């Protein structure tokens, strides 16, 4: 195994050094290898990122950095060293000391990572007690720690239980715990996955600021390449338990030198790519299973430029530039990696409105309170059109989707129309044609498909229920639909658990298309999938749309994906459409201040974003919306005396481009000078419950 020691490396010892680490999981008595010789180091004060698709061993590596093995995990070879101490040789007591004083870890889901039955103060204080502080000292230190992560109202947070805080606040709490010991090494495992883009941006800002204060080394695991690009100095690309490419983030992302890295980067919509430009690149095949036998190059089965050499010899480490290397025999032939072609297909959007949302409001009644979840929403879908819908969690996106489907009925006066005619409010009251007209693809195909049914039965039920076709004709229709989803007849007799995530989502999409719908509501259809699988699903959705002429309501947190697929984009906040316009117009400039902040929060793979506009505090509760313009409490352009008094009307500022804002186009185009003030407000913002 080659180790990478730069001759010029400073005498200072690495905060984390993993050397030739091989690990396997014992599954029913057989060892299945998961790490196949991982070697990298994180220098003091450096941020190192690990990227790769699920199952590649990222998280296993992260846990190994603190020597936390699952009960069936075995280290077969290699060492893990931190600051000169070898973790792999430590006793249980030394290891506890190491975790208490030297290293910390922050996990993916902050809601799960804190104990639901203990007060926040108690849990943070515990991190200090482990280091020998008295209860009283620890409590004071805990309060300090919460102040350091700039949480709103730290005194009151100390006394609260986890379920009383939002995800973003909890992640701050978890980070506060992690920083208790001023760690030499901080491991962050997908710290922002599952958080809203705006909250994600805040958490990332916090980590970046703290890094300057602390001089901790950071190991950041993320599948979001944008997060890695904006946060890290260097990055390692992992595939099937091995690092296949390493270098500075700029080098690796701008000049990828391994076929896998190239494939990964090609599969995400970058540089404002749209479906009319070209298809996304989906890496063919699937990632190898844990324990697969891969004696030479691990990427061999999916590599477009593999030769006989790749089958017979382990690829060497090839230096590309200083500190940038790839583990590939053919790094000189990377140009041969096929790039997706420019698309010839024209995506025509019809002019006639198929489905309309007309003045729809939805008020829920909770414990005697009115909670307006949707307020006067007006939208129309033309044939073959994709309308992207963005907004933070709690902005009413899913309520809108459910109202269209007839799960919720809109308040008096609102209507969902099909070719101009009002449909019944409740799905159960709708005539067959209306029921067929709207269908849905859910975020998580695992829970959306009946696990004990075969794919054929799942699809047939939808075909029979929606089209009324029976018997052999129904079977034929099932096969047709499946074929359109690029599912083979073999898949039809499988059950969902035998399928990969991507295939399951194809089945869910097939089901949605079974009744030949006019509009398909896609609620985060790719956010549970890996990027290369996501690419295939997005391509599929685009192709289907062209063939079937159906419209999409496409809900997603991922602005890049929304931009790729959508013809128009609507931005929602507290149940109201704040802005709507053609995709190109939306990204070209003058936006509603909320859109402006949302767009600026996205960590981009294409390099560091411009000035970020922080959103003060959290989204207000719909039960108690702010007066005037609902966004004024967080708006960086709010005009005192106007915005908190009167609610603005929707005004058209360009062809098909409307915003709900008092400001004029000229005012909105002025560059921002308010960043400092906004940051100060974040710190004092009172706790939102």
């Amino acid at each position, binding site marked *: 195994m080659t180790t990478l020691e730069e001759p010029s490396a400073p005498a200072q010892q690495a905060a984390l050094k993993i050397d030739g680490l091989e690990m396997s999981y014992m599954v029913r008595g057989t060892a299945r290898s998961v790490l196949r010789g991982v070697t990298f180091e994180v220098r003091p004060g450096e941020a190192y990122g690990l990227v790769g698709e699920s199952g590649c061993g990222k998280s296993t590596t992260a846990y190994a950095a*603190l020597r*936390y093995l699952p*009960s069936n995990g075995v280290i077969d070879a290699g060492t893990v060293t931190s600051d000169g101490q070898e973790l792999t040789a430590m006793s249980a007591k030394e290891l*506890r*000391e*190491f*975790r*208490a*004083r030297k290293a*910390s*870890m922050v*996990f993916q*889901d902050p809601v*799960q*990572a*804190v*104990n*639901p*039955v*203990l007060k926040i103060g108690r849990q943070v204080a*515990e*991190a200090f007690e*482990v280091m020998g502080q008295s209860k009283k000292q620890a409590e004071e230190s805990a309060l300090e720690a919460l102040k350091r992560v700039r949480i709103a109202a730290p005194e009151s947070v100390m006394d609260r*239980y986890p*379920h009383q805080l939002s995800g973003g606040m909890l992640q701050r709490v*978890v980070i506060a*715990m992690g920083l*208790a010991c001023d760690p030499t090494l901080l491991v962050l495992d997908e710290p922002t996955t599952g958080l809203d883009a705006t909250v994600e941006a805040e958490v990332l800002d916090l980590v970046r600021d703290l890094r300057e204060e602390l001089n901790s080394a950071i190991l950041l695991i993320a599948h979001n390449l944008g997060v890695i690009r904006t946060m890290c100095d260097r990055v390692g690309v992992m595939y099937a338990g091995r690092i296949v490419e390493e270098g500075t983030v700029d080098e690796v992302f701008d000049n990828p030198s391994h076929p896998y890295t190239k494939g990964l980067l090609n599969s995400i919509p970058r540089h404002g790519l749209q479906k009319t430009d070209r298809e996304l690149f989906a890496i063919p095949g699937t990632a190898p299973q844990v324990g697969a036998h891969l004696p030479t190059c691990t990427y061999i089965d999916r590599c477009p430029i593999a030769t006989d050499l790749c089958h017979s010899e382990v690829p060497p480490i090839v230096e590309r530039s200083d500190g940038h290397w790839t583990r590939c025999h053919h790094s000189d032939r990377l140009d041969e990696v096929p790039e997706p072609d420019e698309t010839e297909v024209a995506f025509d959007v019809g002019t006639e409105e198929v489905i309309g949302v007309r003045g729809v409001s939805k008020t829920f009644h909770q414990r005697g309170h009115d909670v307006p979840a949707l307020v006067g929403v007006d939208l129309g879908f033309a044939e073959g059109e994709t309308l992207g819908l963005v907004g933070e969690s709690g902005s009413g996106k899913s309520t809108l989707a459910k109202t269209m489907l007839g799960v919720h009925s809109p308040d008096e006066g609102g209507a969902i129309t099909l070719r101009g005619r009002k449909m019944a409010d409740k799905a159960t009251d709708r005539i067959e044609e209306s029921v067929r007209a709207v269908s849905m693809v859910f975020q998580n195909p695992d829970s959306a498909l009946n696990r004990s049914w075969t794919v054929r039965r799942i699809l047939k039920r939808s075909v029979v229920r929606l089209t009324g076709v029976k018997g052999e004709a129904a079977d034929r229709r099932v096969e047709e639909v499946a074929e359109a989803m690029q599912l083979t007849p073999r898949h039809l007799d499988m059950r969902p658990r035998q399928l990969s995530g991507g295939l399951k989502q194809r089945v869910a999409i097939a089901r949605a298309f079974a009744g030949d719908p006019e509009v398909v509501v896609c609620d985060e259809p790719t956010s549970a999938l890996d990027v290369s699988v996501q690419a295939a699903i997005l391509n599929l959705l685009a192709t289907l749309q062209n063939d079937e002429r159906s419209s999409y309501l496409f809900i997603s947190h991922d602005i890049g994906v929304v931009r790729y697929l959508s013809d128009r984009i609507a931005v929602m906040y507290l149940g109201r459409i704040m802005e709507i316009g053609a995709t190109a117009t939306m990204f070209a400039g003058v936006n509603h201040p909320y859109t402006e902040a949302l767009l600026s929060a996205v960590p981009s793979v294409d390099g560091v974003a411009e000035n970020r506009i922080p959103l003060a505090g959290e989204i207000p509760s719909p039960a108690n919306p702010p007066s005037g313009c609902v966004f004024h409490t967080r708006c960086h352009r709010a005009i005192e005396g106007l915005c908190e008094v009167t609610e603005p009307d929707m005004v058209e500022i360009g062809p098909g481009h409307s915003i709900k804002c008092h400001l004029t186009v000229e005012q909105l185009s002025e560059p921002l000078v308010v960043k400092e003030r906004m940051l100060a407000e974040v710190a004092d913002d009172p706790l939102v419950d």
Partner: protein
Amino acid sequence: MLRFIIRRLLLSLVTLAILLLIITALPNLAPGDPARKVAGGTASPERLAQVTEDLGLNDSIITQIGDSVTSVATLDFGTTADGRPVTDVVRTSLWNSFKLVTLSLLVIVPLSILGGMVAAYKKDTWIDRTIVNVGLAFSAIPDFVAGVFLLAFLGVPFEFFKVQANAPGAGPLTQIQHLLLPVIAVLAVYFGYLARITRAGTINALDADYTRTAFMRGLSTRDVFKSHVARNALQPTVAVLGTQLGYLFGGMVALEQVFTYPGVGKLIIDAVNGAEYPLLRAGVLAVAVIYMLATLTADVVIAYMNPRARLSVGDS
């Protein structure tokens, strides 16, 4: 929390009222003539009429219910066939059951919780399998069968184990010694059940991210169990204990029979056999009250353990 307890107590009163209705109506609905059963087959017609009158069966059902309510309010349920006050008889049985149940809990709860937690921590090892399977095997044996076996293999050959569970007037230690065999029988039945519930709860808590976070913070296994796992893992166990406590009081009829122990179970079955309706009424009501208090206590304990459970309690 107080509001929750009051609300629950009021609800319990409603349940008790319904129960009272049913047991008051019982003699009127029972097949055959209850008075004949009480007085005996050879009783004279005068005697029979007297007994019918004493049982209140000549009164309208409304009057009977009124009498029931009065008897509950004054805690005076009349006298038994042999002239003892019902209240005293029930009180003695309750005290006996209380001794048996308390001693059983003191043995069973720590043992099953420990067993369940060890099994969870050593999941899928031989230790886990032994605990789970042994527990399951013993749970499958009815308590009175276990009792008979214990009598045969421990009670008869060893002087130390007493065949008679009841030792009236003896010192506390002697009483405990006498209760050992029935306690072991109860343990055999409940250990497997409680240990398995605890094991499942502990496995969930051990798999949880917050437990992993606690380990990553450098806490020792003991501290992790003490401050993070226990409170989360034991909630189902507490809930089950709450519902089983009522059963332990009134349901161990057969076991009490085997060890000739005068507990509430034996009281109720004797009352049924002798058609002693006042005794039956008081005994059933006593068990119901204990059952309700036990489940209420369990809910309050869970609300204390889990702040989210307090939400449903209406106290956030």
